[in-house]
């Protein structure tokens, strides 16, 4: 079963890196919310990676915190300053 785990690790790592790149590079309408969502996906998938690396305690912490709490904190602050999202587009045209 070791090859199965290795193959799953490869797939997961690709997914994590893609999500991270989406989070950094995304542009356009609603780009801020997509960036936050992608960061949440990074931590959710990292928790599966932790489980493969035989750390179920850490995996559970990351799943419980990355899934809802962190995303929520970001969105709550973002909802209070909706102009900040639009402003990003103007600021980054250099």
């Amino acid at each position, binding site marked *: 079963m070791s090859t199965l785990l290795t193959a799953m690790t490869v797939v997961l790592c690709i997914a994590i890196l893609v999500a991270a790149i989406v989070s950094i590079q995304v542009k356009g309408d609603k780009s801020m919310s997509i960036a936050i969502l992608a960061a949440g996906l990074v931590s959710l998938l990292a928790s599966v990676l932790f489980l493969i690396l035989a750390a179920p*305690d850490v995996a*559970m912490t990351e799943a419980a915190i990355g*899934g*809802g*709490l962190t995303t*929520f*904190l970001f969105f*709550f602050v973002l909802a*209070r*300053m909706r102009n900040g999202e639009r402003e990003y587009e103007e600021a980054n045209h250099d």
Partner: protein
Amino acid sequence: MIKRFLALSLLVGIGAIFVALMMSYEPDASLNLTARYYAENTASETGSANIVTAILVTYRGLDTLGEVTVLFLASSIIGLVLSLGNKQNTTLRKLVPVGELLTTGKSYLAPIIMLLGVYVFVNGHLTPGGGFQGGAIIASGMLLLLLSDPLKHFSHALISLVESLSGFVYVSLGVLGIVLAGSFLDNRILPLGDFGDLISAGAIPLIYSLIGLKVGAEFSSMLANLSEMEDLQ
């Protein structure tokens, strides 16, 4: 443009260090000295099946106390910073109302989420999980309540009561460890019981439950403070 170039060159430098680290890294074939001690003695000394829990609560219990304190500080600084400043233009926010489905769904899911949190921190010494995970799950239950009613105000008094009460009992149990068993936060103030039972491993389930309540209350107070922020233009 020059800034971007500087950033990229810095990243290349860091990346080179990382590659060097990875090339020279060789996985250990056997456990190192500390890990060996923990692997051999945890079961007989603390009676806890989960070695991570045993280290977190007993062997390095003082660090955990410090960590919980840091979290407490973070949540109180958030409360302090948000309470500063001008509050004259407080208008009630106009929000899209919550649908009936989410309201009904919340009222049967929130108790189950809370129960799962309690399960996770009570079973901290047997299964993966424990106080920090359980506290986060309880705070997620609070988050569901907040999502289904964004203008809800939590009782700050209740949250800080739970927080300070569990903190007080936690420290008292630690001091009791000095008196009865010889060191701070020693779990052998209660009988170790049978290995693998729910009530075993001395004071570990009790201490971890208190940590869970404390962490849950701290996260909840963070959420409550953030949800009461005002809209900015």
